[in-house]
């Protein structure tokens, strides 16, 4: 057999490709560049349930599976791509509650506007006269840690009467709770209300409350927990099984906490100092500790979410004249800042920050702070450009 040059070349290419097979595979991104993934140390059984929940999170609801008929999105991952923050593409609207006396528009489709509809149906329209706010979904990582913080710890962080005169007066959101939730160990009750902590206004008690509500109000999916269809208002057979809801709640509880990047960079360290000096930490509390949790990896852990899970008055610029539960219209729950540096990777390469995504940069988000954060915002504007940049670099490292 006579080999030509091209034959030899072809065989050489073939051999090279085969022998370098492993090198041709895509390597995994660094763990701290991703929001998704489980907490380290889950048992095998817990990992199996985590995988089931992961599947439920990505499950696409079609018409046959119960989507709608009016809805906002057709899967959890639409609003939380990569377990991250939502975008204006899946912005949603809540309406009808102008004060703490309850929602006045529940009989007109409130509290959430389902502004999309399956073919043949008309989506909801905002009723005349209803106050409303636009919202984008928060990231879902590390929620199990937040869920496991004890009520007593949140009360210890609060200062509803601003007794230390620092201008910051966070308070826990005592709210009515649905009968299907299980109380946390050592729950603290006040006038028949319990401390809620999830959602932009902190109106959802726990992740089952939040998840069942999202299935129902975001996707039009009924469950054992939220059996009423948002279009007809009628009680319907569950369109998602209780097991699936439980798996999804477990998934949300056991998603890892976002990991820091470049935390030892000198600018990051300088920015962290500035963050403290500006009193940002008075609301964006750096460190919390969990209490007991039946999930061992969540029990009695120290973690760094940069939130106090309390309600704060954020001033007139962020007052949309809409509220939930017993929060005032200008009050918002302090959002965790962990993972904020990875937001762009879930938001199509852009920042959409604050409750409705109106801030297109970290700087813009800071400037929008008012109310209890007014002094911190003013102090920020008086920083040098270098110091401002160091603060931004620190936030991006979270």
């Amino acid at each position, binding site marked *: 057999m006579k080999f030509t040059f091209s*034959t030899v070349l*072809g065989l050489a290419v073939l051999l090279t490709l085969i022998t370098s*097979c492993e090198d041709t595979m895509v390597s995994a991104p660094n763990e701290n560049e991703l929001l998704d993934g489980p907490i380290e140390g889950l048992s095998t059984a817990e990992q199996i349930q985590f995988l089931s929940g992961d599947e439920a999170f990505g499950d*696409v609801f079609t018409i*046959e599976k119960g989507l709608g008929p009016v809805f906002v999105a057709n899967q959890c991952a639409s609003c939380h791509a990569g377990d991250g923050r939502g*975008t204006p593409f899946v912005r949603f609207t809540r309406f009808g509650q102008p004060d703490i006396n309850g929602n006045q528009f529940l009989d007109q489709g409130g509290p959430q506007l389902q502004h999309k509809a399956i073919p043949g149906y008309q989506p909801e329209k905002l009723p005349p006269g209803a106050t409303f706010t636009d919202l984008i979904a928060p990231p879902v990582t590390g929620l199990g840690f937040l869920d496991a913080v004890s009520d007593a710890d949140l009360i210890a962080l609060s200062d509803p009467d601003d007794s230390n005169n620092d201008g910051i007066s966070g308070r826990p959101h005592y709210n009515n709770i649905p009968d299907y939730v299980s109380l946390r160990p050592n729950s603290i009750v006040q006038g028949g209300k319990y401390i809620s902590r999830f959602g932009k206004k902190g109106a959802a008690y726990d992740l089952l409350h939040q998840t069942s509500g999202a299935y129902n109000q975001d996707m039009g999916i009924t469950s054992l927990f939220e059996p009423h269809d948002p279009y007809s208002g009628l009680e319907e057979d569950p369109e998602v099984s209780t097991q699936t809801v439980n798996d999804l709640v477990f998934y949300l509880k056991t998603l890892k906490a976002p990991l820091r990047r470049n935390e030892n960079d000198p600018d990051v360290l300088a920015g962290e100092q500035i963050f403290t000096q500006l009193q940002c930490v008075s609301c964006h509390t750096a460190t919390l500790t969990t209490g007991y949790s039946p999930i061992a990896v969540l029990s009695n852990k120290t973690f760094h979410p940069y939130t106090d899970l309390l309600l704060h008055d954020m001033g007139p610029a962020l007052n949309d004249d809409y509220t939930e539960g017993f929060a005032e219209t200008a009050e918002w729950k302090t959002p965790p800042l962990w993972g904020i540096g990875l937001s762009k990777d879930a938001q199509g390469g852009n920042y959409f920050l604050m409750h409705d995504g109106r801030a297109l940069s970290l700087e813009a988000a800071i400037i929008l702070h008012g109310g209890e954060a007014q002094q911190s915002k003013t102090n920020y504007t008086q920083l040098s450009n270098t110091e401002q940049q160091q603060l931004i670099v620190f936030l991006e490292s979270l």
Partner: protein
Amino acid sequence: MKIFTFPNHKSWLFGLLLTIVIGAVSSAQEDIITKVEVDTSSSNLNMDAVYNRPFLALKNTPVALGGYLEANSIYSSEDGVSEGLSFQARRLTIFMSATISNRIKFLSEMEFEDGTKEIGIEFAALDVALHPALNFRGGIIMNPIGAFNQNHDGPKWEFVERPDVAVNLLPATWSNAGFGIYGKTHKNNWILGYEMYLTNGFDNNIINNEDNKTFLPAAKNNDERFEESNNGKALFTGKIAIKNRNLGEIGFSYMGGVYNKFEEDGLILDQKRRVDVFAIDLKTTLKKTGTYIVGEVVFIKVDVPETFTQQYGTKQFGAFVDVVQPILKRNILNWKNATLNLAARLDYVDWNIGTFNETNTDIGDQLWAITPAISFRPSSQTVFRLNYRYQLQKDILNNPAAKTTAWLFGFSTYF
């Protein structure tokens, strides 16, 4: 691929067909079998692909049998996470043809994908030749959109995977119950062919599916399309192909119609909504180098209700091009005219062209892939393929692309 299912008789049917094929081949004596080779004359167009296959014909009978088998191994990794090594029995396809009488013939193509997971009749049609320029075809036909849909036999391609535009944008293999006409004419070096069919068509699944995107292949899940139209409106598919024996072939095709169920029992459910597909396919061989080039471009327009989610796009685009360079053609290990090829494929698919209403930023949902390949053909009917695929896929939000790499090794052979 699920075209037509036999849920209760899969194993029975599979066994029967295998028995027929293997039995016929093994029991037949050489002197009663005629091997019908592929027609390699330059007068063939892409539309002739369904009949232009190797067959084994029993002498003195009007029946011919054929088919192909393809299998491969795959080792892939997405963003550093690998599912390990898998072996795939992709397809076993069996053709049966019969010349019923003068100018009347029949051909069927049955496919078993992934073992017996999906069984389908991809083609089963009666052809009546009235004139070279006018033939009637009816039954289960393959809609002539693009070129790959009709010319999809594994042994003809140097790549293990089918082109993305053909399987992830268009349905492959997309066939329906219907009727139509086709014909060819030629003058000197020029050949002109046409096809026109009315068939059953798409349904609401193309904008309501678990792929979470406008996805025409989702219509293949509707087994009932061989029994009745989803909405009582026919899908039109038409194609014109022009070939110059020295230059190559180009085809222009269109497929369109109302896809949604807009009425039931006299009650209006929705307005009529259309899907329109335009495709251009090209095939040529550079005489100087022997380089074979084939490609296809597809544009799709779908009427999606404005009140539905933008997750389901109204416009789609896709393309692929294969470049195949023979680098050795000679006798190897007693295989006459064995051929070694280097090849490369480029794939591009955009499932959702447009901008978000809320932000006016570009919608993502795109895929790019490049696949270098080496193929070895001991004969023209058998190909061994080694492919490496590098793929980038963006979600609808245009977040950083998921990177997938895969090694694929396999074979595809007519029998």
